[in-house]
């Protein structure tokens, strides 16, 4: 099944939608030199055609509303529908960010309360809700740490990240002007503390860690590592990708982390939206509070206000106050769950991961000792002799109605298959998934060429990604460069190719 592009379905003769007329008197006219010469070649479709187009596209997606997403390090849990209703309330959705504070007291109170609730979960003193996503949050935290060191007259130039870290960690460090130093993982999958000792110096601004780490293992020596880092004057940064294991179990703040980021689109059920919007609040201990992005939300005698007067602030990391609509969703979730519910959620997530891990023993390789926390990394290297790779297992799962686990990450495990079931999948789903992995492994042994040909029943099969990257086609062109288009193009009205050489 394929669906033509909206541009390919466009009908040039279609009249525009009915829109308001100006209904005012003025002689003003935009001077010719400012006028657009050629109209943009936007499609012209009726509303009925638009709705059908996007309904067909929707049917070509897997989503958490229909499929199980055992996607390691992504925490794809159920997105409560009440959250959506909350975010759409006119009292939130219809609020201009530059309304006077006295007309936005409910919004400010929500942010203030959410900040305090999240502080309780992770054990920090203050939180900024401004960052838009996890990577943005990492960068925001590093900017604060950088500003902290600079305020002390220290020019620290290095950031240490584990070899198992997510790619955004080193990328965020570089974006802050730091040099990245990698620390090794030991044979047990945890940070090699001897290597960490060797990499630490007074040039180091921060160590970026997640705990549980990307292998789903708790860093047992976290308190010792924190001590080592702090002894050199560096700060410890917590990547919140794996916070779903820890709510009500233990707190990054107690482990010695100075800055802690959270992904509301993971742990706090705001939907992923096909790749965002998310939200990435960052919590800090007292030392770093002066450097928080401005404005912060403050409460004086029951009146809420934005505090812009923060002289040591790193400034703004984006416009306005964050992805407010996502904050509403997360706040709604926190209210519904409460302290007891969040605690049970983490415990259930850990239980589900261990149960699924147990079910896959002997099916896939499990290179690290359990128990795991909320996720685990298996390896498909046991299928190597049959010419089967982790990617083939992933595609086999897609064929059978499951989204694929995260594959080839972390980089330190060959043929990695990283699985995170979350707390919102039933035992029946976990069992059915384990049975399916087993069936795929059996197929891999019996007739690997059949597995390598999957998926067969999805809208497309495996795409030639190398060819796509070698000769990138990143947009539709009015003059129809696309050979596969079957519908006639409208007459060329626009030549917007900007060949300036």
């Amino acid at each position, binding site marked *: 099944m394929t669906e033509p592009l909206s541009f390919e379905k466009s009908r040039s003769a279609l009249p525009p939608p009915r829109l308001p007329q*100006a*209904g005012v008197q003025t002689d003003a006219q*935009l001077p010719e030199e*400012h006028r*657009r010469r*050629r*109209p*943009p*070649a*936007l499609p012209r479709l009726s*509303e009925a055609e*638009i709705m059908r187009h996007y309904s067909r596209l*929707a049917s*070509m*997606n897997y989503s958490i509303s229909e499929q199980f997403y055992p*996607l390691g390090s*992504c925490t794809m849990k159920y997105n409560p529908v009440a959250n*959506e209703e*909350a975010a759409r309330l*006119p009292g939130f*959705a*219809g*609020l201009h960010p530059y309304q006077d504070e006295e*007309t936005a007291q*409910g*919004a400010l109170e929500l942010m203030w309360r959410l900040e305090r609730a999240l502080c309780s*979960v992770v054990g920090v003193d203050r939180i900024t809700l401004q960052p*838009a996503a996890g*990577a943005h949050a990492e960068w925001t935290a590093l*900017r604060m740490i950088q500003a902290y060191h600079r305020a002390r007259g220290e020019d620290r130039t290095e950031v240490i990240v584990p070899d198992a870290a997510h790619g955004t960690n*080193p990328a965020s460090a570089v974006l*802050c*002007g730091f040099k990245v130093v990698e620390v090794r993982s030991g044979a047990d999958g945890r940070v090699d503390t001897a290597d960490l000792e060797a990499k630490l110096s007074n040039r180091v601004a921060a160590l970026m860690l997640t705990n549980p780490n990307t292998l789903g293992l*708790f860093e047992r020596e976290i308190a010792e590592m924190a001590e080592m880092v702090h002894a050199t004057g560096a700060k410890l940064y917590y990547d919140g990708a794996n916070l779903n294991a820890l709510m*009500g*179990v*233990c707190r990054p703040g107690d482990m010695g982390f100075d800055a802690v980021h959270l992904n509301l689109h993971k742990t706090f059920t705001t939907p992923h939206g096909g790749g*965002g*919007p998310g939200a990435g609040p960052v919590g800090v201990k007292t030392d770093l509070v002066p450097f928080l992005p401005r404005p912060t939300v403050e409460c004086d005698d029951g009146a809420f206000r934005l505090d812009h007067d923060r002289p040591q602030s*790193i400034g703004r990391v984006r416009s*306005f106050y*964050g992805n407010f609509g996502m904050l509403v969703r997360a706040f*709604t979730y926190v209210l*519904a769950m409460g302290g007891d519910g*969040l605690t049970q959620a983490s415990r259930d997530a*850990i*239980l589900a991961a*261990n*149960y699924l891990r147990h079910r896959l023993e002997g099916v896939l390789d499990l290179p690290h000792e359990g*128990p795991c*926390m909320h996720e685990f990394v298996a390896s498909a290297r046991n299928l190597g002799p049959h010419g089967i790779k982790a990617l083939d297992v992933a595609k086999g799962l897609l064929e059978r109605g499951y989204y694929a686990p995260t594959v080839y990450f972390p980089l330190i495990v060959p043929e990695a298959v990283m699985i995170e079931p979350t*707390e919102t999948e039933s035992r029946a789903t976990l069992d059915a998934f384990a049975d399916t992995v087993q069936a795929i492994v059996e197929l891999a042994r019996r007739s690997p060429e059949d597995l390598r040909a999957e998926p067969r029943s999805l*809208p*497309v099969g495996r*795409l030639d990604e190398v060819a796509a*990257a070698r000769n*990138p*086609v990143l*947009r539709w062109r009015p003059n129809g460069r696309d050979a596969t288009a079957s519908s006639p193009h409208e007459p060329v009205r626009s030549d*917007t190719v900007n060949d300036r050489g």
Partner: protein
Amino acid sequence: MPYLVHSTEDREAMLEALGVATMDDLLVDIPPHLRVDGIDLEPGLSEFETMARVRALAGRNRVFEDRLWFRGGGVYQRFVPAAVSAVTSKPEFYTAYTPYQPEASQGTLQAIFEFQTLIAELTAMDVANASLYDGATALAEAAMMAVVETGRRHVVVAGCLHPEYADVLRCYGDGRGFDLRVGLEHVGSDTAAIVYQQPSFLGLLEDAAGLTELAHRHGALGIACVDPISLGMLAPPGEQGADIAVGEGQQLGLAASYGGPHVGFIACRKELMRRLPGRLVGEGHDDLGRRGFVLTLTAREQHIRRARATSNICTNHSLCALAASVYLTYMGPDGLRQVAEVSYQRAHALAERLAAIPGFELPFPDRQFLNEFPVRMFHVEHHLARLRAAGILGGLPVGPMFPDRPDLEDVAIFCCTEVNDPAALDLLVEVLTASAASVNTRSGAR
């Protein structure tokens, strides 16, 4: 407990399968002194009680009627076709993950490919990416592209840039190692880019072609920060020599939502394509020759290149980009032009009427504008309070945002769109006329 799925029996059966007695047996790697027992938060609520609390908070915000919004400053009230939320509230879109597995994500991938094309067409640039967080961070990403491309470390701002965008640029620059200089007198051989907002934060049109030419004369890039609706009628950055175009897409079908989530876009000349931050969707084919869409040129990105990536961006604003795509597809080229023209005409009619009120004036009468414009009105806070009392969200007072610009003291910027019907304009003028009369009676016209 809401949203949890296991019965006590399920939990016990799973523990038993694992051969352990209690949950604590699974937590043995956590040092005991780090363990906590629960969270210091009140217990969970029923959905009814949860929503009652949330509604009570929403009720403490004042919502102004759509047609009585005359405040912009980066976030605008526009007509949003019902098709937009009908599409974005499809769970197949909003609960999907980043489309890393193309066979199971063709809906999202094709929608992004269409978004990239729509933005490239709108800006008249060669290529656009899959989206960024917002207009401000899009501008910062563009500045970083220019810094890397030119190997220079100064970015010059021409005209009046949104002060929050300038703050964000500074914050990125402080980390990445470039600085921001305001004013064309700073342009020189060490300039990486000239950045301009078109129309400016005040709503005024800049000489975009002149600015990009100046940038190129100094070996710098021209970066345009544009209003996407304006491009229905206004010369787009690609026609004016810009190398990178960015902007905020909130007006393309997204609610104001107290400032987010909205969506940033970035487009550039094809020579700069490999410096683009974030995700790009390209066309590909499977072994049966069927066309499909796939994330491509990933060698720029953090998950492949790690420390050598063009940016750290990972999660972007895909669902907001989808909203923008539905909006632009609904409007088509003629609808978009009409929205821009109606906004233009109403704003000009309003500006003429406001300028006629005793004590009010247009501070930059020789400058062109589109649908947002500055008005000098002494006792600006008094007038805005009168408007508020009449249920009108009046113009944005910009004086406090620019303490170094005495010429903006007592200035508010007003905007008009297709939602401000003629009766709304009449009401605004009536209230301000009365307000001005009361001030003039008290203190005499200044």
